[in-house]
């Protein structure tokens, strides 16, 4: 069993796919520059400019090229460097990638994997956002946001094998996170994961906050004997609530944690479903932890209070246990 970082896990899986004649990667600064977050560093030299396609700074074009190529049987990997830039490609993603299969009566498929990153750190308002919920809102898209190196690798494989467009959300602050990647490990789109067993409170989360929640859970277990059960959703459309609901029916208390503005997001959907399908099991109002609802500030002292922190997660857990 190998121990890898998220970045290494992704690189290993991308290499597997680059052997396939149908696969190419297209994005900004993925080749000559050497890749902004290092995921495709060195690939241009290794695989050449037909496979590693440096694109103009034209996000609609990058995604549109991916869609057209997918229609004619290719398996493009489209990289949008930062999810903030995906807004320029929303027409392509939502009006086209998400619609082709249904709108044309099942005649066409769009097997596109769109890799993009959430993230922040002194980047201010236009470079620190997360739009998970905006993708997940749209029927026709699948939205995957793994947390561990093993899931990154396995779910990227699942996304590439899937005939539908998949939005694959990474996180700029997670590429260095290490973890074990078993050789035969597999994960499926639309299946959540029990990340930690516990009896006292259910935490429903995904992507980078999974690691923050694990940290808080270990601390509370060690210091006070509080046992958190953590459910990593891994996919947010389609949404697998089965493990979260089983856990909630056991603990009767839940905290939902994600890196997004707190209102109108994935959290809202998860909380609604916990109430809809677990109403008889509620012992305390469900708490949620997300970004404070302001555009992101640049200054560190402010930014540190906007983001999801272990302290805020711990406070929410204590509140539902009151």
């Amino acid at each position, binding site marked *: 069993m190998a121990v890898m970082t998220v970045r290494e896990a992704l690189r290993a899986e991308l290499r597997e796919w680059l052997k396939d004649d149908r696969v*190419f990667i297209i994005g900004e600064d993925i080749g000559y520059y050497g890749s902004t977050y290092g995921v495709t560093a060195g690939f241009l030299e290794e695989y050449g400019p*037909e496979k590693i396609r440096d*694109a*103009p700074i*034209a996000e*609609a*074009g990058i*995604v*549109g*090229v*991916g*869609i*057209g*190529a*997918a*229609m*004619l*049987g*290719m398996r*493009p990997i489209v990289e949008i460097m930062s999810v903030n830039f995906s807004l320029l490609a929303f*027409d*392509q993603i939502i*009006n*086209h990638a*998400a619609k*082709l*299969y*249904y*709108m*044309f*009566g*099942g*005649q*066409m*498929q769009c097997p596109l994997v769109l890799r993009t990153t959430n993230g922040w750190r002194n980047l201010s308002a236009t470079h620190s956002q997360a739009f998970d919920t905006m993708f997940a809102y749209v*029927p*026709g898209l*699948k939205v995957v946001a793994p947390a561990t190196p093993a899931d990154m690798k396995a779910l990227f494989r699942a996304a590439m094998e*899937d*005939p*539908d467009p998949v939005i694959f959300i990474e996180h700029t602050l997670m590429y260095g996170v290490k973890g074990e990647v078993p050789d035969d490990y597999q994960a499926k*789109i*639309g*299946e959540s994961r029990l990340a930690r067993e516990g009896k006292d409170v259910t935490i429903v989360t995904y992507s980078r906050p999974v690691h923050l929640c694990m940290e808080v859970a270990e601390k509370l277990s060690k210091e006070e004997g509080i046992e958190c059960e953590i459910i990593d959703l891994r996919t947010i459309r*389609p*949404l*697998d*609530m*089965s493990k979260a*609901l089983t856990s909630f029916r056991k603990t009767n208390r839940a905290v939902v944690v994600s890196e997004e503005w707190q209102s109108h997001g994935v959290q809202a959907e998860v909380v609604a*479903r916990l109430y809809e*399908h677990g109403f008889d099991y509620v012992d305390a109002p469900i708490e949620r932890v997300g970004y404070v609802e302001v555009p992101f500030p640049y200054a560190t002292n402010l930014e540190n209070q906007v983001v999801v922190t272990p302290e805020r997660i711990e406070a929410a857990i204590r509140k539902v246990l009151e």
Partner: protein
Amino acid sequence: MATTPETTERYAGLSAEQLIDMYRQMVLIRVFEEKCQEMYTRAKIGGFLHLYVGQEAVAVGTINALKPEDHIITHYRDHGHALARGLDPKALMAELFGKATGCAAGLGGSMHFVDVSKRFWGGYAIVGSHLLMACGMGTALKLQKKPEVVMVFFGDGATNGGEFYEALNFAKLGKLPVVFVCENNLFAMGTPIAVHSSVQEIYRKACAFDMTAERVDGNDLIATYEAALRAVEHARSGQGPVLLECVTYRLRGHSAQDTQKYRTKEEIEKYRARDPNQVFRKKLIEDGILSEEQAQQIERQMEQVVDEAVQFADQSPPAEEKWLDPTSAYANPIADKY
């Protein structure tokens, strides 16, 4: 009836048989569109209906320059392209009627005609966006080393949006086998070209990308066909993309509900005198390629074809309810779990 060497030259080397077939296609489009208007008025067709009346020579002239293995992707005024490509009028009318037998199972409607078996990759209703997908198709063909070309249609209005410029840049950078066909009908919806575009000769916009471009009278079938042949040959031979501007005029409104306040009756009448179908019909008769009787016979046949399409659409079952299942939006359906 046979062509003489002289007429052969004048008609781009097309045989009498081919010329008559092209006239048949133009008539089919015209009759189909007029019937659509009637069916819209009778509420058999809903939504937006953008008719192709007056632009027939563009679709027929350009699409006949393609081979069956070439690819077409187009805009929302897509009936003419679909019929010129040989899509089944029955499946098209059924689509307009929202029936299960429609070319898109009743899910797409007028703006989203499709038939992948004919390499007709659909009509797209967000102006300009499909030009980028055409570049992706061209990229795929190049990587697959296939000698096929992509022909993409759009209007003059689409050439002001960012996607047009992104697409021309991508196509030229990659030397992609894409023929960009601009149907310049002088209006972006109801806004005249002098109001919506700083440059009114659209083909000049290609020079920013050092792209081969040509402007042709899109109401002249043979001139359009010849220009399209040149463009397709250029793209197929690996020399990269071409922008072909076909100047034309739509004789009906932007959509079936258009009151056409933005133009005068006189202007429409002026262009009616240059109706591409009438011009071509007259020319074929004058040159002895087609007789008046033959022309009338073709027109009667096409009316029958369209009537049969209406009958088929009327008698077809409604769109299937299976499409209400949320997982039906996916080729690989995965349901939410509770």
